[in-house]
Each structure stands twice: as structure tokens, then as C-alpha cells.
């Protein structure tokens, strides 16, 4: 069966050049990067080269990069590493669960948290952030791009507000990395999370940007790795992979490099063709700036879960909202935060393209989706009732 993968926001395939870069580190270059002998020196050098690549991608200094096990750990390190009893946190209702559940946990421990709502386009209003600040606000954490809708948040404005108020600003940039240019000094953030497996590096590696001068309490205690910010022997192959992926990302980003623009074009074509062929459907987050690879589309009168399964059985992989919440009962908290009713939220699908996605892949999806939606609508009592009313 021909399989087309359009769920890159869940995870991405490791690029061949990334795998190649990693290979020696599973083989002859196996040393512990902290060992003083030759073997350690080799892998230490590889880790530091990777650090430089990641720093270049974010526009920061290598010393400001802390390697972690992924985006979730980076988010946790930022939040738990900064916040103290008596502090107040400002975040948004559309954050990834790694941020939301960390905040919820802190709430249970007595920390006050304000969750800024979003509008119908999935956008946070920076003024809302400013109004939420209190004397004891320690941290503002707002994501750069939402994982479900792809909508880009006004992080530059929020960074400015936080700088003026002298409040730490963390942004979860997991879904923005490698899709749009990131410059930590333009954003004026103090912390920023990235995840390897969203940018064609392997699962199990990520990084947290920590602005020089930011004191973080570590979460992991042990050796003095990562400048005593994150103990644990470095995942050398993973880090090397992340570094290579970052290099590749930098090459294709910014100033409309062909492959970045092309990705946007493919997404736009997928979106417009589906909407042309399917009625009672629309884009969630329409009207807002988005990363170029994502489109979240609602198809009224059907169950999104059934559509995802039906498409999978025909070889097309997509998702309903975030992967971590599959099987969960609540419709997407992101779509709900945008003011969407539960029926439409449950009828929404996320299509997310990757570097490897071709025009043929998009054609395959365009050919499959309208037919599958039509079939489901045939079986849906809701659709017939509604079309009967209109006819």
C-alpha cells in the first residue's frame, strides 16, 4: 500500500544526512563526552559542534544551549527551574500539555497561574499578557507556534512587554523551529524550547536556550553536565543528529529559500483543493499567521476520529489534534480555546507536511480526503438532516 505521511507535527522522519552524521557515534566514536581520553575528546568535540549549530539556528551563543531529552524536558526545565513559591506565572490556554500540566502541577502546590485566552484565530493578545502581569509574576510562557493549528503567536511583542516589566519570558518553539526563522534577540525571550524529532532529528533529544545570566534550578542532579544545568551523560548520537538537523534547517530557512517557500505552496494547494471540493469545511486558524507546513481543517457532520482511521486504512496518515491526546475524550483544548463547539472540534483534522513531502503526496491526499469525507457524510444522520433542510 502506498503510504503518505502528513503528520509531521507529531514527528518527522530522520533525514538521511542526519542519520549519516549520527552513524559514527553508534560505531567507532562511542566515548563518553566527559571522558578525558581520546574517545571522550572526540565525542566532546562532536557535542560542541552540534551546540554551535543549534546556537546558529536560534541566533544565540553556544554556551546558552542546554541539551535535553526533548521538548517536554526543556519546557519542564524552564518552568520548574525558574519558578519559586509565591511566584505567579502567565501562560496561555493553547500551550502544549508539557507546559499546561507543569503549570497545573505548580498550581496544586500553591503557585498562581493565569491562563490567557485566545481569539477565534487562535491568537494571544499581547495586551492581555501585559494586563495579567503582577508584581510577583516570575515567568511568562507562551508558545511560538501552536502544534495543532500552526498559528504563530506574537512572541516579539510579548518579549518586549516582558523585558519592560523585567519578567522572564519562555517560549515553547518546538513547532516553530525549522519552519520559520528564530532569533532569540528579536523575540527577546529568556528561554526557548526546541525538540529534535520535530525537525528531522531523532526522538529523545532537544534543547533549551537559556539566556546568559538566567539562573535556573536544575531538575536533574548528578554530574555537572551542561554547565551544571542538566546532569546526565550526553546522548551523543542524538545531539549530533540534532546539530545536523539544525544545520539543514538553517540552510533552508529565511529569505524564502526555495524549499521553505515550496513547503508553504504545497500546504496551500492541499488546503485550497480540499476546501474547493468539500463543502461545510474550513480552516481553523484562518486569518492568522501560520507556520508554512500546517493546516487544521474542520469537516462538519462527521467524526474526526473515524475519518483519521478511514484515511489511515487507505494509506494517508494525519491526526486529530496533538498525538499525546489520542484516545482522550475531550475535544482539543486548543480548538475549544478558540471558541469552537465540541462537534466541530471533534470534526477537525490536522495535516502537517514535512521536508520530505512531495507534490505527489499532496495529490494523493487531495484525491483521498474529499471522497472519504463524502462517504462518512453519507453515513451521518446529521448531514442528511441538514442537507434536507436546505433543499
Amino acid at each position, binding site marked *: 500500500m502506498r503510504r503518505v505521511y502528513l503528520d509531521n507535527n507529531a514527528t518527522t522522519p530522520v533525514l538521511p544526512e542526519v542519520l549519516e552524521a549520527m552513524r559514527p557515534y553508534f560505531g567507532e566514536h562511542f566515548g563518553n563526552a566527559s571522558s578525558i581520553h581520546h574517545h571522550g575528546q572526540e565525542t566532546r568535540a562532536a557535542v560542541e559542534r552540534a551546540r554551535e549549530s543549534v546556537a546558529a539556528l536560534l541566533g544565540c551563543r553556544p554556551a546558552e544551549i542546554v541539551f535535553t531529552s526533548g521538548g517536554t524536558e526543556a519546557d519542564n526545565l524552564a518552568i520548574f527551574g525558574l519558578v519559586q513559591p509565591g511566584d505567579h506565572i502567565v501562560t496561555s490556554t493553547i500551550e502544549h500539555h508539557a507546559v499546561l500540566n507543569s503549570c497545573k502541577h505548580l498550581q496544586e502546590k500553591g503557585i498562581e497561574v493565569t491562563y490567557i485566552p485566545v481569539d477565534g484565530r487562535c491568537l494571544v493578545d499581547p495586551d492581555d499578557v501585559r494586563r495579567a502581569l503582577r508584581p510577583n509574576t516570575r515567568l511568562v510562557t507562551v508558545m511560538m507556534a501552536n502544534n495543532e493549528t500552526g498559528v504563530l503567536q506574537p512572541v516579539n511583542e510579548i518579549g518586549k512587554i516582558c523585558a519592560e516589566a523585567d519578567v522572564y519570558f519562555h517560549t515553547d518553539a518546538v513547532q516553530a523551529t525549522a519552519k520559520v526563522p528564530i532569533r532569540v534577540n528579536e523575540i527577546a525571550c529568556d528561554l526557548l524550547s526546541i525538540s529534535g524529532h520535530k525537525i528531522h532529528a531523532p526522538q529523545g533529544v532537544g534543547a533549551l536556550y537559556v539566556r546568559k545570566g538566567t539562573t535556573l534550578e536544575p531538575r536533574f542532579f548528578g554530574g555537572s553536565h551542561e554547565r551544571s544545568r542538566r546532569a546526565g551523560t550526553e546522548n551523543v548520537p542524538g545531539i549530533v543528529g540534532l546539530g545536523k538537523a539544525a544545520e539543514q534547517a538553517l540552510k533552508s530557512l529565511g529569505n524564502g529559500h526555495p524549499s521553505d517557500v515550496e513547503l508553504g505552496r504545497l500546504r496551500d494547494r492541499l488546503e485550497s483543493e480540499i476546501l474547493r471540493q468539500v463543502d461545510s469545511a474550513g480552516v481553523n486558524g484562518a486569518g492568522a499567521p501560520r507556520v508554512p507546513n500546517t493546516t487544521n481543517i474542520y469537516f462538519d457532520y462527521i467524526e474526526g*476520529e473515524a475519518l483519521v*482511521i*478511514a484515511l489511515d*486504512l487507505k494509506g494517508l496518515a494525519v491526526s486529530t489534534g496533538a498525538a499525546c491526546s489520542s484516545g482522550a475524550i475531550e475535544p482539543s483544548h486548543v480548538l475549544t480555546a478558540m471558541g469552537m463547539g465540541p462537534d466541530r472540534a471533534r470534526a477537525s483534522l490536522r495535516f502537517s507536511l514535512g521536508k520530505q513531502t512531495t507534490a505527489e503526496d499532496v495529490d494523493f491526499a487531495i484525491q483521498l480526503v474529499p471522497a472519504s469525507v463524502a462517504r462518512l457524510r453519507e*453515513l451521518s444522520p446529521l448531514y442528511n438532516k441538514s442537507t434536507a433542510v436546505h433543499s
Partner: protein
Amino acid sequence: MLNHNTIAVAMSGGVDSSTVAAMLRADGHNVIGLTMQLWNQRRLAGHAGMPETVTGRCCSLDDVYDARRVAETIGIPYYVVNHEDRFERDVVRPFVQEYLSGRTPIPCSLCNNHLKFDQLLTVAQQIGADAVATGHYARVGFDEPRGRWLLMRPSDRSKDQTYFLFGLTQEQLSRTLFPLGGMTKPEVRDLARKHGLALAEKPDSQEICFVPGGDYKNFLDAYLAEQGESLPDTAGELVTTDGRVIGEHSGIHNFTVGQRKGLGVATGSPLYVLQIKGDARQVIVGEQEHLYSSTLLTRRINLISVKELLEPMRVTVKIRHRHEPAPATIQRTGSDEIFVTFDDAQRAITPGQAAVFYDGDVVVGGGWIS
């Protein structure tokens, strides 16, 4: 046997449904494994005496894991579909309501009617499957002369689950497969072993899936507390058959017809719950002989082997799952009412349970005992 192209198998993580999936796959059908996520086992954990962790129950993480591993072993796609909302609405809430009204419910029948053979059939169609197969011990087939789909008792009588399936319609039966109908439990386990399924020895789960440990009173407390509702006060009197008040009770939901323990009164001879009068909050108790009755009335009828009951019919009737079908005559006494007259008096006929009518092995139909 089957001319369905694609079959969805309802997989519970138990050995029966797992074996069904393996069998159908081995026979060359296109099989899709589905587990319905119906109840979050962690939802009431730790409340009001409910166990802290629940494993090995339908919908527990362990069971989904087991089902998924089986799917992987036999090489079929596998999905978990979430219908917690509907289950709560169509099974759990009525369960609570019935107890609070003084009746003893059978959630498994409701689950079959609304979820397993309704919602799941819908999902199956949506994803391109023509039929749903389950691990129920029952048989289904089309009877040409009658022009109707028939539900029949399985070969292994000790595992007969037809009592819970009496509510299935012709449409539902036409799309249902019960591949284990001709097998015994030991044969099924054997077949599971042959297919290399690790869970061939997994013990059966007999209880209500959302009431771990079987203590429904704890469940009622915990569920109502979670909903922010308090247990309604249905405390009242314990009354004898001749109207004498001999004691008090703390709530009608604590009782079921035929119950002997927990009455809190000591008299000469053992007393049994004969009847629960919800409106009056009275629990009528009496001696064993009063537990027997020869008649009952059923409503919300579903007929399977016949389209209509125009004349009285001789059948055997089960009034609960663990009951030997007893000879009786059934006749229609209203538009949705069938009256049952047993040859011999039956013990503890319980409102809320179902009465299922059999013509030999064929399920004629059934209704709810009022």
C-alpha cells in the same frame, strides 16, 4: 461461512475476542481490530472506597495494551475509538437511575444495545467494514423460511451470553458475527495458544466493567459525589407483606429482590427482600415462600425470531443470566407489553432485569421486567 470483505473485530483484550481476531485473519479476511474506550478506569479511583488502581478490566490500560499486542502478533491494524460520552449517557447513568429507583439494572445489555452493536457498528461502517465480530458465546444466522436473522444459544451452554443480547435488531444481527458460537471455552483457549497469543491463559472478567470489585454501592457513592450530586435520601421503612412496619432502611438502592443479608432486623425466620417500592421508599420483606411468583410483566420488548407475537406462545424464559430457562407461556397484553406465565413459580423475579424468551436454542426475544 462469511462473505464479508472487511470485518471489524471488537477487541476487549480478553482471550475470546483476541481469538476471534486471529481466526478471522487466518481465514483470509480483511480484519481491523477495534477497542472501544468506554470508561476511564482511573476516573473514580480513590473516591469513596473505590480501589486506587484498576487493572485487568475492560478499558483499563492493560487491556488495551493486550489487545494491541494481539493485533500486532496477528498483523492487523488496530485502533482505539473513544465513546466514553455515549457509554456514560446510555449505560452508566441509567445504571445509577435504576438503582436509585429500586430496580436492579443490567448494564451489559444496555452496552450491547447502544455501544457494542450500535455505536461500534456505525464506526465499523464508517471505516469501511461490513460487519462486526465479537467474542460473545452465541450464534447468529439467517433463517430462510422465516426470512429473519436468528440469535441462538451457543454450543457451550455454560458460557451462553444470549441473555445480554436479546435487544439486538434484525439490522444489527445482519451485520454481526459470533465466530465462537460453536466452540467451548477450553477449545477457544486452545486455539489462542495455537495462534501464539500470549493471553491464552488470561482469566475471564465476569463483573460489570465499570464497577471494579463488584461493589456497586461504592460506585454509586463515588459517581454521584464526582458529579456533585448527593445520594438522594431514600431511607424508609421495612415492611412485611401484611403491611406491618418492622424496621428501617437507609436507602432503597442498597437492596435487590431476593436479598437476605443486610436487612438489619432479626426475626425468627430468615427474611428476604420481596419488593422495593421506590415511590413509597419501602422495602417489602417476607419469608422465602413469598419470593416465588409465577408471573411477570415485561416492557420495551424486542422480538427477534418472530416479527410479531399475535398469539400466546410456549417458550422457556430466563429471568437472569444465571438461571435455567423455565417453561412458560408468553402473550402480548399491550402495544409494548408481554405477560409471562410460568409453569412453575420462579424465585426472586427482579424488576430491572430482563426476561428473555427461548424457543429451544432460538432466542425469540425479550423485554425488561417491570
